[in-house]
């Protein structure tokens, strides 16, 4: 049996961890070792946006040990990620360089959405998860710097929101007043309520959520000993809240005993408990599920999936499309036109398969771009291209990397605006990505041109590639004069990129 020994390193804002896994088809994922070390990078990061040398030193020492441990287990491969702890710090590159030079570990920085996606991957391999999201569920992932709430309806992710409420951040923000206030919990609650309130107002009004799924380092310990339902291991909301209400800063000896937590002096315990409690109250789901999966599991699943060791239960691409659609709906830009456009652009993409040189993943990005191509109109009809770009870049779509989001946003932008040269985009993407943007935008443009009137005058779009010509055959109910007239302008741009000339063949239908 082929077994891959894999090391997953994650650098968080208060903890650095290494998990050693054995990945195999038969046993799936087996955790062999889990080493955690407290390093409060968040202390520097949240206060000064840079990491001081003492912490870099400490971090390197630990990573060096991790390197040794991985060598001890003779790992076949490893992946080291950092998220908020190193993202956006001013000396990010220097820290990464130091780590590499001193520990021979390459650390990659994840954007928030990538980080959340990996966290969520750990779950997506679990059959219970698929069951729960079939109805409706909210996934709450609490980290040191922030939390993420992702809503699922009918088996798909519809929205994901990043809220800057992390346990380490809360603790740091309150650290100065901690000694002055009598009710520490109340202060946390006030901070939490402000942020959660807006989320609830915007995304939850009038919608029921059956399950709430909680991820995070402390939730397991907090809910130790709480009775779970036999069938799926969930906890009834009431029972959950009853236990969480017991967490107070000045608990008595006996209360502590009852709480049964492993380290009652942990300063992050109370912020965690309050944050979870308020979130569960706000989302008001019937059942709480604590799957006990952590980011390291996600890193391992991600690796196993990429290396075709394991296949997930969940279809992540569907998530991207449904999330894009939910976003479009929010900006009232999802319409019949969008659907028609999807059909046409995919027909063109598929017909061009042998000449466009794009991957299957790009097809998904094309769909996302189509769905979101008009969203900026909600803000401004004149500046819609720029507004769409901004909206897409500011919204998170779970399952998409940061670069992919940039590609989609640019494709949408240069669908409406003329494509700029690579030099102007060079700080955002590499040349391959620039080519993807150009090609997707070109396809989007001619597809869009076909429905210029937004009246869906045709159906059954077919596209075929013949020599250097792309024949787009449509069955039209009405005259396509407008479309034909504008088509030639976009066709030139298309030809310049693909060296293929698109032309419309019209089959008039008469009822």
């Amino acid at each position, binding site marked *: 049996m082929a077994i891959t020994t894999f090391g997953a390193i994650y650098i968080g804002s208060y903890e650095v961890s290494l998990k050693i896994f054995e990945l195999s088809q038969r046993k799936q994922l087996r955790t062999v070792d889990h080493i955690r070390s407290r390093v409060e990078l968040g202390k520097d990061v949240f206060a000064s946006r840079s990491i001081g040398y003492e912490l870099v030193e400490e971090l390197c020492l630990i990573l060096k040990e991790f390197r*040794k441990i991985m060598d001890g*287990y003779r790992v076949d491969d490893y992946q080291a990620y950092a998220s908020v702890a190193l993202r956006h710090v001013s000396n990010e590159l220097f820290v990464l360089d130091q780590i590499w030079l001193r520990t021979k570990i390459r650390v990659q920085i994840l954007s928030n959405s990538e980080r959340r996606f990996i966290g969520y991957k750990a779950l997506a391999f679990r059959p219970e998860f698929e069951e729960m999201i079939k109805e409706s569920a909210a996934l709450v992932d609490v980290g040191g710097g922030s939390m993420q709430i992702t809503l699922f309806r009918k088996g798909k992710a519809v929205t994901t929101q990043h809220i800057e409420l992390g346990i380490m951040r809360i603790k740091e923000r309150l650290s100065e007043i901690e000694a002055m206030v009598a009710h520490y919990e109340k202060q946390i609650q006030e901070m939490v309520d402000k942020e959660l309130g807006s989320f609830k107002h915007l995304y939850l009004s009038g919608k029921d959520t059956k399950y709430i799924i909680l991820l995070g380092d402390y939730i397991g310990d907090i809910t130790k000993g709480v009775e779970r339902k036999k069938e799926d291991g969930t906890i009834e909301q009431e029972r959950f809240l009853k236990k969480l209400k017991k967490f107070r800063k000045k608990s008595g000896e006996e209360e502590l005993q009852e709480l049964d937590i*492993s380290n009652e002096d942990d300063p992050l315990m109370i912020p965690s408990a309050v944050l979870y409690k308020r979130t569960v109250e706000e989302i008001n789901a019937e059942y709480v599920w604590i799957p006990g999966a952590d980011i390291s599991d996600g890193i391992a699943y991600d690796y196993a999936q990429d290396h075709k060791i394991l296949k997930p239960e969940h279809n992540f691409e569907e998530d991207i499309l449904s999330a894009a659609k939910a976003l479009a709906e929010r900006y009232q830009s999802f319409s019949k036109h969008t659907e028609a456009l999807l059909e046409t652009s995919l027909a063109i993409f598929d017909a061009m398969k042998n000449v466009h040189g794009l991957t299957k993943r790009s097809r998904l990005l094309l769909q996302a771009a189509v769905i979101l191509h008009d969203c900026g109109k909600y803000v401004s009809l004149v500046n819609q291209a720029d507004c769409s770009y901004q909206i897409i870049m500011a919204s998170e779509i779970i399952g998409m990397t940061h670069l992919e989001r940039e590609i989609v946003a640019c494709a949408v932008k240069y669908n409406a605006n003329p494509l700029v040269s690579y030099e102007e985009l060079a700080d955002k993407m590499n040349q391959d990505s620039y080519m993807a943007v150009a090609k997707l935008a070109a396809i989007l443009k001619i597809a869009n041109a076909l429905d210029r009137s937004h009246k869906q005058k045709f159906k059954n779009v077919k596209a075929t590639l013949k020599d250097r010509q792309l024949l787009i055959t449509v069955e039209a109910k009405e005259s396509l004069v407008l479309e034909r007239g504008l088509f030639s302008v976009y066709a030139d741009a298309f030809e310049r990129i693909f060296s293929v000339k698109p032309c419309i063949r019209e089959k008039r239908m008469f009822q």
Partner: protein
Amino acid sequence: MEKGKDFYKSEYYENRELSWLKFNARVLNEGRDKSIPLLERLKFVSITSSNLDEFFMVRVASLKDMVHAGYKKKDIAGMTPAEQLAAINKDTRELADLQYSTYNRSLLPLLKNKNIRILDAHEDLSKEQGEYVDKYFEENVYPVLTPMAVDASRPFPLIRNKTLNIAALLTKKDGNAKEQEFATVQVPSVLSRLIQIPGKKEKEQVFILLEQVIERNIHQLFLNYDVICAYPYRIMRNADLTIDEDEAEDLLKEIQKQLKKRQWGEVIRLEVEEKIDKRLLDILKEDLHVASDDIFKIPGPLDLTFLMKMYGLEGCDDLRYKPFKPQQVPKIVPGEDIFAQIRKGDILLHHPYQTFDPVVDFIRQASLDPDVLAIKQTLYRVSGNSPIIASLAQAAENGKQVSVLVELKARFDEENNIVWAKKLEKAGCHVIYGLVGLKTHSKIALVVRREEDGIRRYVHLGNGNYNDSTAKLYTDCGMFTCSEAIGEDATAVFNMLSGYSEPLSWNKLVVAPLWLRNKFLKLIRREAEYARQGKKAFIKAKMNSLCDRDIIAALYEASAAGVKIDLVVRGICCLKVGIEGVSEEITVRSIVGNFLEHSRIFYFHNDGQEEIYMGSADWMPRNLDRRVEILFPVENEALMEQVKHIMKVQLEDNVKAHVLQKNGIYDKIDKRGKKLVNSQEYFCQEAKRANPKEVNVYQERVFIPAETEE
């Protein structure tokens, strides 16, 4: 917890120091047992003497500190430090009296019967013997002596802790006879205390004590003086050790506050020969600042530890037990792959009845096995030339990840530990030097091995140290397992010991100081709950010491609820039996035998779902609060039966067991009409029977006649 309150009354508890003295009396009792071979009896008397020294240095010294610090907090038995010291003084004197009456009245005459003589007065020497002794003095002793006189210009010298010295009163040969001077000389510890000299008769073995040799020749040290008299003396100071860790933290703070009041190097005991000249004693008393209470007049040679040297006397095998050779563990065939044997199922080891070799072999094989990735082990007290250390170093050289936790705080062993810890570091091992504030007392070894179906972990858990020499003398239990749950926990233990965060959860192991006390309390209370429900409930436990207040209170509560509790406690036991409504259901017995009882077993009935645990912890506050200890469950059914059997035999022992009585006295069991059970002897025989007789390899074929059945 309304119910529990009553059980904390101080009259329900015995003071731990007094209980310890009782233990030492039980050891002395072995020295008085006529059924035991003579040299073995000498050994027991010697042990009581070294035990008492350690007790003074550690326990009495800290009580003295408390008194100086004005610390008045009462112990669990309601005694203040001063009251404890007074009681200890009284009991120690009784113990010492018994020691010397045993030595003088029974051991010396018996030795004489066997033609062995120990001379403790040089006046008894014959002429030839005297000449021999004088020559010996001149050649061997004189060069290493440093006599020191005291007068106005020379202050009283520093007398070293625990050394034997001779004090002498001198007058100048040409001076005023009334001007007496004091001088002292240390009996050199580099020379053997016992010197064999020619016998008067043939086949007679005669020994003389070194201090007598010096006394006889003391005039040679002070040539210009007349020696009026000379007597040996010995002191004990509280200088070497800081406060014993067993005391509460608030005590430490208290003492730190009063640090200046602490009298460093204070003499806490002065032993002198009974016949000592009063003038000499007065000088000693004044210059050493000893209180009258702390002076012990000894009717015989000071410091009986020299008797241990007699134990090894050549040509006297009939005066000793036949040495027992630890037997092979039936499930482990020497030389075969030990990992394969463990994979077949958990294996229990019972030392010293069974050999410690498999544990040594476990590490040795791991160090050579190419599939082994890592070896991790805690080492507490290790023998001087330990094969385990050699293997660990070898493993590191073979490229394996080797982590070793070395406990430097092991009492009296610090120096020894540092030496081999450095050795391991040189070989490339990752050496962890203990945890701040915690002694690592747990015994655990982990081997991580890469196998065809993934990583497998092999664990050895024990309650004895990884010390192949003491494993021949201490009774200990150990277990080999490759259970995944325990393996995961073992990995977590080492991560924790390496300074990483605690694991999020434990599968099987319970680790002190974090969770162990609660676990024990829960187990005891659960048993009490069953008893209240009218169900059968019992606890059988074996340990070295029992002195934790919470645990004892929980036991009282359980007993009051009707739980049958049978305890085997070798040493200190602060629990009292037979108190009406409190401890009527509790029995306590102590086994003091040829081997040192050292295993810890905790067996709970749990309404039929029996649970058995073993581990490194006693029910003492220091084990539960200030040490890293591991408690592990024995879950394999065959192993559970074995452990239950061990408990059963120990509880049936009526030869070496002393049973604690209601009045606090330990009595031996009335053997009349009973089949004698000596548990240690029983286990020896059992271990021998468990192994096939050694087959003579040269004998090719043997026909075995069938035996007729009786």
